[in-house]
């Protein structure tokens, strides 16, 4: 079967009942909780994106880049050995790890760089935690000839030296952030502050389905190519839609991307997997939807991890990409209206899943992705053999090899 024959629309085709209202709210979540100094830039973006959304020429140009530069479509791979081993439902893997730069992040950064060019901006900025979105932004900026600055917490700069150097090789400037906890949320604060004084010539590329409207909608649209391909590939390979779609959730962009095209398929269950870190111990997890509550952070109303004073709580996960005290507002909406459910997987379960997928299927997943695999491993044996689970393999594990070696007790410094 030829993976390249599937035919999907480049233009997002999610039914408008799932779009946010005119204030950028998905149900009660989302909105624009931003200082007035950002309002003009966000409004400009909102208006530009509303036009772009209807413009087939834009999506065609984006699709060309995804085909020629990123290598789309990514395969949907039947994990035969793992399915047999688990002895239940059949597992299919959506291979976003095979994209250029090794994760789904590039679908969004190429889209936003093209949008920035259309807006006449010369410079792009981004935040990054583990460095994956930073690398994807630096890559898109390099291939389109734009200046690029990436904000990264000092703590993450120290832990992710390889990605810091990768961004430098791509011509981006990495700004080390020394505020607060010196991690992802502080990098977002710094990038927003940069944008307030630079928005005339700068576009801020947010890396997930978060932040003020229109970001959650726009990033979901760019990532929804993952779900459209998965849908077409499942129909092509099995003649049916999947019964379950499983994806990890930090901010939630890979999950939103693979879920969105299935929203109207009521029989397809959608499961987001958060990081339970150290078994949901206070301040040692990032399971925002599972144990958080509604609040406001980074320009959006969503589920957050806050104390009773409204101060953001520390978060932890073995995976730097899930280590975020908020979550995309659309996920909060899907959970509240019952369309998707959310579960949490701890550090240990994620590591075991990473090992199992590596040895059984020859695929080393990212630690983020390993959370989704761990849930599928729990789910599959409970289901009959004719049921099908798709797991979004959102990223490859190369970036995590040194950390995994350390966690497994290796004394070698990689």
């Amino acid at each position, binding site marked *: 079967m030829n993976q390249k024959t599937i035919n999907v629309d480049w233009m997002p085709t999610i039914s408008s009942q799932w779009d946010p209202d005119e204030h950028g709210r998905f149900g009660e979540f989302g909105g624009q909780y931003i*200082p007035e100094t950002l309002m003009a830039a966000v409004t400009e973006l909102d208006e530009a994106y509303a036009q772009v959304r209807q413009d087939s020429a834009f999506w065609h140009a984006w699709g060309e880049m995804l085909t020629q530069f990123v290598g789309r479509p990514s395969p949907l791979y039947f994990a035969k050995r793992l399915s047999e081993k688990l002895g239940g439902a059949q597992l299919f893997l959506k291979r976003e790890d095979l994209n250029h730069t090794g994760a789904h992040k590039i679908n969004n950064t190429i889209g936003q760089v093209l949008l920035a060019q259309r807006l006449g901006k010369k410079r792009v900025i981004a935040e990054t935690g583990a460095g994956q979105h930073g690398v994807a932004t630096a890559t898109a900026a390099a291939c389109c000839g734009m200046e690029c600055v990436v904000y990264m917490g000092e703590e993450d700069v120290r832990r992710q030296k390889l990605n810091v150097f990768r961004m430098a090789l791509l011509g981006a400037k990495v700004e080390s952030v020394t505020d607060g906890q010196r991690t992802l949320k502080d990098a977002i604060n710094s990038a927003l502050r940069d944008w307030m004084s630079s928005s005339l010539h700068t576009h801020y590329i947010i890396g997930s389905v978060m932040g003020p409207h229109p970001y959650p909608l726009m990033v979901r649209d760019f990532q929804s190519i993952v779900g459209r391909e998965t849908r077409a590939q499942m129909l092509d390979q099995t003649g049916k839609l999947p019964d379950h779609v499983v994806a990890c959730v930090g901010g939630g962009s890979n999950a939103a991307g693979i879920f969105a095209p299935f929203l109207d398929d009521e029989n397809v269950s959608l499961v987001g997997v958060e990081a339970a870190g150290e078994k949901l111990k206070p301040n040692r997890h990032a399971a925002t939807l599972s144990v958080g509550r509604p609040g406001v952070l980074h320009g959006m109303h969503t589920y957050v991890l806050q104390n009773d004073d409204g*101060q953001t709580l520390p978060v932890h996960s073995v995976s730097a990409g899930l280590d975020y005290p908020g979550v995309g507002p659309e996920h909060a909406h899907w959970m509240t209206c019952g369309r998707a459910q959310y579960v949490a997987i701890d550090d240990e379960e994620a590591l075991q899943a990473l090992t199992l997928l590596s040895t059984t299927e020859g695929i080393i997943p990212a630690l983020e992705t390993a959370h989704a695999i761990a849930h599928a491993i729990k789910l599959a044996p409970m289901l009959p053999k004719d049921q099908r689970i798709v797991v979004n393999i959102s990223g490859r594990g190369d970036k995590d090899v040194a950390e995994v070696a350390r966690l497994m007790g290796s004394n070698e410094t990689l």
Partner: protein
Amino acid sequence: MKTSLKNRIDQSLMRAPASGSCAVLPFLTAGYPNANTTTTLIRAFDGEGARIIELGFPFSDSIADGPVIQNSFHHAIAGGQTIAGVFDIASQVCKDIQCGLVAMVSYSIIERFGKESFLQRAAESGFDGVIVPDAPSDLAVVFSEQCRNADLHFIGLIAPSTSAPRSKEIASYTSGFIYQMAVSGTTGERKDFGESIAEQVRQLKQTHGLPVCVGFGVSSPSQVREVCEFADGAIVGSAIVRHIAACIDKQLPQESLVTEVTSFMRSLVHGTS
């Protein structure tokens, strides 16, 4: 909507023409470096002729503020400053001061505390108004009414990039005064202001009849003087907090910190006469 709301904010700003000088509005982070110093500074600033004091509620993830104020927030939170504690500071000083007291607070905190209880508590503690830099515009009309129903002015912010129709909309739900930001970006000090700010302020005053105070980037006595040529008040935030930070770095005792920072405040007020 309550239209008759008059409190210390109105009295403070009305004093301006009579005394021949415009108002100075200093900002303090509550609990920086501790609650006791904050109460002492509020009283001292009032004594030096501050017309309105903005008291900042420390927030772990404020996106509206520059590094100086953000660091003071983190310092205050780490030192144990709570939201209830900020209300205590206000309650302690409100009977002894002449100047108005305004809460500068993120919507995140208000939402967590509960909108109505926050506003009620703020009013009971002696606040005269609130500035909420990240209030969402689709809820602002209703929220501003809730503020006025609690006897608090809702002070709207206008940026250099705010369009004329949007300025009009913001002014329509603002009371007390309009907060005009002098520069784009976050709070912090700048060398000069755009020519257009003076024009923007004149237009606002003419169109809406509300006092207009200018902040963001106002950091020295000469800048206060410059702003006072066209505005009703000059708001000084980061520069004051930076003075406090410098005293903390030098490990000065509280008394010397208060003397030093108050003397800077005095120089700002004298800049206006």
